[in-house]
């Protein structure tokens, strides 16, 4: 089965092929090297470290989460005072009867439903803009935007909390200076953005949009570079406006990219944690999204790992379903070649 990509069997094309006998220090090492070569196991040997690392630290925990979600895993079990027992679906039924769960699920869904389209639209618009700017300007604007993307989530969250701080934050100050017909006014003075769900999630939306749109814009720009300029020109000569050109020429060509970006955005925004943790903070249970809710179940005293695992498992399954779409569209685009 093992062939080099070109179909030639030559070992010479394998750059980091099997260890040569002289590099193997011991006779047993030499034997292993010969075994690998004889059975054409080189690619498997090369993959082994990554499979081990990912297997032990990513895949195995995912399997464990599934198992824990059917067990009564709590403090006594961790301390070894009581054994863990399989409890069937009781963790799940506990969750389903918890109003906090439904609240957090609803907040997660609404948040994703708003942020994902918003990020995609703003990102695409900026991508289209970048494509029409001169080279230098385009590099400048995309670099500036990517700085927002590279800002650590912790810093970005702390910055946004400061910008909207009730005492001295520049946003409240700006809103009080805004004319009345734009919704400004003195009632904004000292307005707290983190006290209830609506303003907190508005803040979270702007923050995630700020950090998320640059990646979309740069990806769309990369896609646009592959569209031949003549296509746009001939459409324009035929009298099509920008709106029509986008939907009739650009969008169909970039559809695969948009699909991947859509799926990635859903996965990222539905599972947003760090920003939500810092803005909403531990303790404000009535503003929790799914991630915060699951985290609290696991890591505040007394820990209920079983229930938290059930939540984490639900979150994982939802994201996996979306991931299947992502993988399929990647396969269709020839990513797995």
């Amino acid at each position, binding site marked *: 089965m093992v062939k080099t990509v070109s179909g030639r069997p030559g070992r010479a094309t394998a750059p980091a092929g099997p260890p040569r006998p002289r590099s193997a220090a011991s006779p047993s090492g030499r034997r292993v090297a010969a075994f690998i070569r004889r059975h054409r196991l080189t690619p498997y040997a090369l993959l082994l470290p990554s499979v081990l690392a*990912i297997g032990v*630290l*990513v895949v195995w925990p995912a399997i464990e989460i599934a198992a824990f979600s059917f067990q009564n895993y709590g403090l006594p079990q961790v301390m070894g005072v009581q054994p863990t027992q399989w409890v069937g679906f009781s963790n799940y039924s506990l969750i389903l009867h918890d109003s906090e769960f439904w609240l957090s699920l609803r907040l997660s869904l609404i948040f994703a439903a708003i942020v994902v389209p918003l990020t995609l639209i703003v990102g695409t618009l900026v991508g289209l803009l970048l494509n029409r700017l001169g080279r230098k300007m385009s590099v400048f604007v995309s670099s500036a935007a990517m700085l927002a993307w590279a800002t650590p989530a912790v*810093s970005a969250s702390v*910055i946004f909390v400061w910008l909207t701080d009730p*005492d001295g934050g520049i946003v409240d100050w700006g809103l009080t200076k805004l004319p009345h017909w734009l919704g400004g006014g003195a009632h904004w003075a000292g307005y707290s953005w983190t006290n209830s769900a609506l303003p907190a999630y508005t803040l979270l939306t702007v923050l995630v949009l700020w950090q998320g749109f640059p990646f979309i814009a740069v990806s769309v720009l990369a896609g646009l570079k592959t569209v031949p300029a003549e296509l746009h020109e001939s459409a324009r000569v035929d009298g099509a406006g920008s709106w029509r050109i986008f939907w009739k020429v650009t969008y169909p060509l970039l559809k695969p990219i948009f699909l991947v970006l859509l799926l990635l955005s859903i996965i990222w925004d539905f599972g947003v944690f760090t920003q939500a943790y810092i803005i909403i903070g531990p303790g404000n249970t009535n503003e929790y999204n799914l991630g915060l809710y699951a985290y609290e179940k696991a890591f505040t005293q007394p820990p209920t790992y079983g229930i938290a695992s059930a939540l*984490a498992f639900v979150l994982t399954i939802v994201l996996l379903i*979306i991931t299947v779409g992502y993988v399929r569209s990647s396969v269709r685009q020839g990513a797995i070649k």
Partner: protein
Amino acid sequence: MRRVGLNVLGLLVALVTLFPIFYMVSTAFKPANEIYSLTPHPIPLHPTLSNFRTVIDGSVVGVPYWTFLRNSLIVTLSAVVLSMLIAMLAAIAIARFRFRLRTTYLIMLLIVQMLPQQALVIALFLNYRSWGLLDNLVGLILVYTAFALPVTIWMLRNFVAAVPREMEEAAAIDGAGPFKVFWKIMLPLVAPGLVATSVFAFIFAYNEFVFALTFLLTDVQKFTLPLYVDYFYGRNGANWGAIMAASTLFTIPVMTFFLIVQRRMVTGLVAGAVKG
């Protein structure tokens, strides 16, 4: 006219995007009376270093800033080196060989990349607890390495695949063994890709918060920078000058680093995420 309009729009996008970062740095240099002034000024009128002094001598947290910087650098650099070594091997395997489980492996990478960290962290925490890896930087290094791998392998494989096979074949005909071909041909040609990929791994590990929050529980001496900034913010309520100074010291290095290799990395990332 149209051109001017577009440029103005572009400048506007850049300004709006840069403003929060600019305001962070600006606040860090402001004395307290300017920070809480009724009419905030974008630029500090009387710039001061006192906020940075508060952060660096560690008078609030009891631990100087350098400790956190050192922890972050140890964890990040180790994770980058480890993940680059492992990813390079894997990238060569999938870019240069055809084998039975290749497609399975690639699909596994795509799926693994999407598993939510805040779900897995629960099981990892329990495992780390029994393996004695809590409050331990080694635990963080391992988990950052593993979680950086899917994307770094994906990115590197594109760079490896772009190296012309003929060059390796020519070297091999001239009598170079596999290791020599790797050192003399593959490595120099993949180096730019290796840089771009390691910057990605660096940013991921340097910025990571959820694992650090969960695995470094009690020992402030072991905190990495993102955890420190969050801790500082939690302990310090309203001392925004110092919080922004801590945040600036944390953010500016990674941004500088990012700007240096920006173009190449963006291309690699986009290729990895979108085109595959």
